[in-house]
Structures are given as structure tokens and as C-alpha cells.
């Protein structure tokens, strides 16, 4: 029988230059402190020796164009490439210098996909979608120079309305936990993104976060109180700039009823940064 051997969630622009340019020295220092914590979390993750690492993250209109936006998508196939963006600016630069290709855990990815469809989750599948910073900035920070285990990238549509509901994302996490429990693999799961930033996805409101909202959801996760999180509405997530909590909700479903341990929480103003771990072993 398999099991989830490690679970964590964290902000996903682990790139000091981005915050240095857009927030200043305070932002740079804060994300550098977060990076140190995530590296330490990576030592725990590495010691857990997972056979596969499920990464739940979102696309920033880098991979899926408006021609088709999957609500929930499993990356299948044998390997996955890093996104390449010519003339990259802003957070796309976090990808520079990272390896171009990563292995995919094909059997686990196929199991999540196939058993998901059998269970009523109409997941999309992609054989070719590359990974942007939402996946690779955390993975590369967690693992550093250590080889990365085979990945199962899983996309949640966080930014193009209508998004999947918080409750549905939590249910997807329960599904992933079932597949892990009934398979032969030791599985690690991470979710990335957030906390609140870019409220209403409005250019006019870039620079604002919702500290009260973020403190509230972190407290809920510390308490293992997931009911109010699954009740979060699209309106609440949109207005507070918490779109990427949908990724975290998948993780919460996978680890529930475990409680979170806060490894980092920082109020930057532009965004609130966080890294949490769950004791699942």
C-alpha cells in the first residue's frame, strides 16, 4: 500500500529579483527568508524519499491559451519540459537556468487520470504542456542540486472564470489521496501559489493584498478546520486575490484531517508569502 509521505504548500515566485524590482529591499529580504525556509523543507522532503511528487499549481496563461482552458488537468507522458519564454520579464524569469526537462511519474499520473474519470472527475489530460514558474520555482528551491523525483504536474484553472469550486478542488485532493493509498508508491504532494495578491485580477489593484483574509485562512489550516475553506466562494477568492488557494484546496483534500504547521508567513503588502507543512507521516 502506498501513502503520502510529505505534504506542503508555498508561495511560488521564489525569485528575489522580482520582489526587489517591484517591492524594494523589504520584498527582496522577505522572499529570501522564505527561500531559506523552503530549502529547509526540501531537506525533509528529500529525506522522505518519495517515488513521485505531485505538484498542484496553476497556469498563468502561459501554457493554455484562451482556445481551451481546462478546469483540472493531469500532465501525463514520460517527461515534461520547462516553459521557454523569449525575452522573459517579471516572474517568467524565475525559470532561467533551470533544467529543461523533468521526468513524469507516468503510472501515478495515469492512475490519477483514469481512476478520476471513473470516479466522475472529468479531468483533462495533456501530453505536451510545459511547466511555468508555478511548478518549477518551488520544485527547484525544494530540491536544489538534488535530483528531482518523477513529477505529476496537476493544473487547476485559477484565473480564467469560471473556475472549479473550492469544494470540487478539495474533492480532487481526496481522490489523489485515495489513488496514493491504493497504489504501491510513496507520494509527496505540494500545492503552490498565493497568498492573496492581484485582487480582482485588476491592474489598478496590483500591489494590494488582503492580510485579514490570509491570516484567517492560515488559522483555519493550522486548526485543521477545512469546512470554511471548502465553503469559500469564487467571489471571495476573486475579491481578495486568493485565486491560487484553489491549488491549496486540492492539497487540503489530500491531507485532511491533518493540521498545518506554519513554517513561514510574511506580510509584504503586495502579496502575503507563506509556506506550510502537514504532518502526514
Amino acid at each position, binding site marked *: 500500500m502506498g501513502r503520502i509521505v510529505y505534504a506542503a504548500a508555498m508561495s511560488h515566485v521564489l525569485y528575489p529579483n522580482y520582489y526587489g524590482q*517591484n517591492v524594494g529591499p523589504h520584498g527582496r529580504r522577505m522572499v529570501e527568508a522564505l527561500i531559506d525556509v523552503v530549502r529547509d523543507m526540501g531537506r525533509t522532503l528529500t529525506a522522505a524519499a518519495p517515488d513521485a511528487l505531485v505538484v498542484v499549481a496553476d497556469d498563468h*496563461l502561459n501554457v493554455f*491559451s484562451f482556445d481551451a482552458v481546462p478546469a483540472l488537468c493531469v500532465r501525463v507522458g514520460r517527461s515534461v519540459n520547462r516553459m521557454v519564454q523569449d525575452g522573459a*520579464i*517579471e516572474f517568467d524569469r524565475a525559470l532561467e537556468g533551470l533544467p529543461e526537462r523533468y521526468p513524469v511519474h507516468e503510472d501515478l499520473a495515469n492512475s490519477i487520470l483514469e481512476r478520476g474519470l471513473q470516479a466522475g472527475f472529468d479531468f483533462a489530460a495533456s501530453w505536451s504542456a510545459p511547466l511555468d514558474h508555478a511548478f518549477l520555482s518551488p520544485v527547484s528551491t525544494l530540491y536544489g542540486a538534488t535530483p528531482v523525483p518523477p513529477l505529476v504536474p496537476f493544473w487547476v484553472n485559477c484565473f480564467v472564470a469560471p473556475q472549479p469550486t473550492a469544494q470540487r478542488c478539495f474533492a480532487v485532493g481526496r481522490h489523489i489521496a485515495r489513488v496514493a493509498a491504493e497504489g504501491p508508491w510513496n507520494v509527496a504532494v505540494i500545492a503552490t501559489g498565493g497568498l492573496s495578491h492581484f485582487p480582482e485580477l485588476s491592474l489598478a489593484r*496590483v500591489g494590494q493584498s488582503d492580510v485579514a483574509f490570509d491570516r484567517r485562512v492560515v488559522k483555519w489550516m493550522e486548526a485543521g478546520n477545512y469546512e470554511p475553506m471548502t465553503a469559500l466562494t469564487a467571489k471571495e477568492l476573486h475579491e481578495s486575490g486568493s485565486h491560487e488557494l484553489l491549488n491549496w484546496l486540492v492539497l487540503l483534500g489530500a491531507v485532511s484531517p491533518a493540521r498545518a504547521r506554519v513554517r513561514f508567513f510574511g506580510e509584504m503588502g503586495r502579496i502575503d508569502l507563506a509556506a506550510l507543512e502537514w504532518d502526514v507521516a
Partner: protein
Amino acid sequence: MSRYETNVVLYRLKKDSAFRDRFRADPGSALADADLTDEEREAFVRWDTRKLNDLGGSLHLLISIPGLGGH
């Protein structure tokens, strides 16, 4: 309001460097075949990112187009 077409143009500006070069040289000409309203076309030509965002243009595209994005 053709939100879809607005985002198609933004996505092309991010991903298609030749199209981006044509747009930067002569935005009106580059968008000649795009199915945009007059309001959208004007916002593109003036590169009014706030207006494009108000018209449904993706924030993440608007801030990440090489040479044009930023916030």
C-alpha cells in the same frame, strides 16, 4: 465585447515575437485582421493596459509581454 479576441491578441503578443515586432512597429497594421471592437482596437494602439484589463484582458498576460508588459 470580444474578450476572447482581446486575449488572443495579448497571448500572441507574449508568445509570437514576429507578431510582437510588427505590433511595436505599427500596431494598427498588425491588428488589421483582428476581430476587435473600435474601443478595444484603440486601447491596443494606445497600449492602454488599464483599459485593456477593464475590457477583459488577462492581467497575467498584460504584465508579462516582453518589452511591453510590467506593472
